[in-house]
């Protein structure tokens, strides 16, 4: 079995990885130290291994690493700007949407892709999106609130509304 070399961008940095032809992206990313990519079911059900590939959320357990050649990836490690958290991360913290935290990286990345595509999502859209991320602690009420809050914060930061004037749900 010959090893392959793939060249890709991870969190803005150009990387090149030697991979086995049957390896999935999840295994390669964790081996390379991106431990925010969580290993869950490994059958595309739980969404804990979600990463963005060219802006689209995918389960890295169901993608051959070979198919990521030439792509641009975003993992949870790359979402904050230095010491400044991404507004989606802020929203998850502020609403108490994080308990054990295992599902959180996947939820945050899936949220980022949703908000790029649909900056003001309906609750139905949010629920459909979160159906791809199993959480066995919080029961989804808080994550849904977090995503809707994040939509307001992200919209504000992009200038359509400011975060300070955005309506927040009373706690």
């Amino acid at each position, binding site marked *: *079995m*010959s090893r*392959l070399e793939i060249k890709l961008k991870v969190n803005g940095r150009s990387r090149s990885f030697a991979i*086995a*032809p*049957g*390896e*999935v992206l999840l*295994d390669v990313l964790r081996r390379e130290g991106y431990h925010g990519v969580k290993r869950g079911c*490994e*059958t*595309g*059900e739980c*969404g804990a291994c*979600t990463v963005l590939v060219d802006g*689209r*959320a*995918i*389960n890295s*357990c*169901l*993608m*051959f690493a*070979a*198919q990521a*050649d030439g792509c641009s990836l975003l993992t949870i490690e790359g979402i904050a700007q230095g010491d400044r958290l991404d507004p989606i991360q802020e929203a998850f913290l502020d609403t108490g949407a994080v308990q054990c935290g295992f599902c959180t990286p996947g939820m945050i990345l*899936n949220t980022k*892709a*949703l908000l790029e*595509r649909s900056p003001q999502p309906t609750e139905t859209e949010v629920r*459909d*999106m979160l*159906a*791809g*991320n199993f959480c066995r602690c919080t029961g989804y009420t808080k994550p849904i609130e977090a995503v809707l809050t994040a939509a307001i914060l992200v919209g504000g930061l992009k200038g359509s509304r400011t975060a300070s004037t955005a309506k927040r749900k009373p706690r």
Partner: protein
Amino acid sequence: MMPWIESFQRPTTIPEALQLVRRGGRRARFVAGATDVLVQADPSTRILVDVTRLKLNYIKRQGKGWAIGAATTMAALEQSKEMQRLADGILAQAAATCGSVQNRNLATIGGNLANASPAADSAPPLLVLDAEVVMVGPKGRRRLPLTKFFRGVRKTALNGALLVEVFIPPLPKGRAAWSFHKLARLASDISVVNAAVGLGLDGKGNCQWARIALGAVAPTPFRLLEVEKRLQGKRLDRALVEQACAQVGEQVRPITDVRSTSSYRREMSGVLVRRALLECAEGMGHKL
């Protein structure tokens, strides 16, 4: 993870892809989104030939119909404005239920059909749309009605050929409505039963034509031609719908598995067809 894979090929032309699979024989397999290939993890597969670089990712007008490239993702279908409009959006709706958003971003329409799961959600809508599949094999290009494509559980007419395109011919003229219904624990789960219906009515509420397809209740997704015939030419009223739905129960051959019993699937086949017929009638303003 399939550690036994010896070679992962990424050809950029169809002839190259065909040659790679032919050379690999039984050890070689086409792969697109990989969402089925990786879950099945078949140990006899040693060579994977990726078809996502063959420029088969498109949704375009062809004559008065639509051509959909086999590597078009479920996400692209569900987000396509054209597919959201075509036939009341039944194909876009079905695509939106093919697993979670992460899976829909990878899974392709060609993969969904070639995998030939009895529960493939894209199949019933395509069957009622009279879709055809275009295949390219060693002997060239050929076109087959989707009804002749499925040969059994996970069996197709491909026989080493590559599914390159799905063609949706022009829809029937006149007043018509379409409906897709799916029964599963969550919309994104594997279907217990899925159903698609197309219905054409004249101004007096007489059924001009009906097309009905079901999935997950027989070895392959299929058209219920006898039920369609029973509806054709008659005035659509409650009694006719009930007769048709009772007949649906006779036409299905469901199994019992982890998701449902055979008898529940049989019962729900009739229920889903009734819901779909009533939704079509309502969509055309026809009161039953």
